[in-house]
């Protein structure tokens, strides 16, 4: 099992893509950054170029994006108990008195 150092993790993906061969490892790192809107313009451009020619990554990106969006839409459903705010306030103002 090869170890990826944190140094190589920080390298710009564009440097490696200059070799002309697709680098899936680098693309995978950038995928999350693009998905989470943390990528730089350079990283976004690299990723866009890569997935245009790479069907598996195009699919992975779209699956990840769909899951992320479904989590946001469907997992924020716990209803806060109606008396919680009042209970907190009363405790705080009781302490302050």
């Amino acid at each position: 099992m090869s170890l990826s150092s944190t140094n190589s993790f920080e390298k710009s993906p564009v440097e490696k893509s200059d070799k002309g061969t697709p680098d899936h490892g680098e693309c995978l790192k950038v995928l999350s950054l693009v998905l989470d809107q943390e990528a730089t313009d350079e990283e976004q451009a690299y990723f866009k170029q890569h997935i245009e020619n790479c069907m598996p990554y195009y699919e992975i990106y779209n699956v990840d994006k769909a899951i992320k969006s479904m989590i946001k839409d469907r997992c924020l459903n716990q209803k806060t108990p109606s008396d919680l705010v009042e209970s907190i306030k009363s405790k705080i103002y009781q302490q302050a008195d």
Partner: protein
Amino acid sequence: MSDNKRQSYSQREKEKTFEQEFLPHIDSMYNFAYRLTFDEDDAKDLVQDTYLKAYRFIESFEKGTNAKAWLFRILKNSFINDFRKKSKQPAKVDYQEVETFYNSEDVDKSITTDLRIETVQDMIGDEISNALNSLDVDFRTVIILCDLEGFKYDEMAKILDIPIGTVRSRLHRARNLLKERLKEYAQKMGYKN
């Protein structure tokens, strides 16, 4: 909380900050607390405890900074110190995670993932929610913070007291685990892929 410069608040400012900057996040806080504890009473206690601490230590809250991230950090610490201790659950994150981040096996595994977008879109809310709930708490937490609450990596690093590199690797592994669970659901539902 102790690394911030102490702020000076009048009683009126304290109440205003509490009401206008802290309380509006109560729904997100309760949702987070529930997804950590899976118990309504525990979640309520955890949120209440967090708000009482936030008020007590309000001088540590730097005006103009992200109140939601500050509150989430207090809640996460309270959960670890009080609730996790009670349930005696050990942390389950593999601390080799940074070293093994994006190794070649992982890359190959991601490329050959056979979870299809149509399958994901056919899933109903319960399946996504159950898959999320089935993850170990440390993996569940990063997904909640990132995907549900929209925190940036640097904010998550502060909330969780871990380096950004660890946030990214933990998130990556959490998503792979989540996809594995969804794939299992998909197979139960009768999808071939």
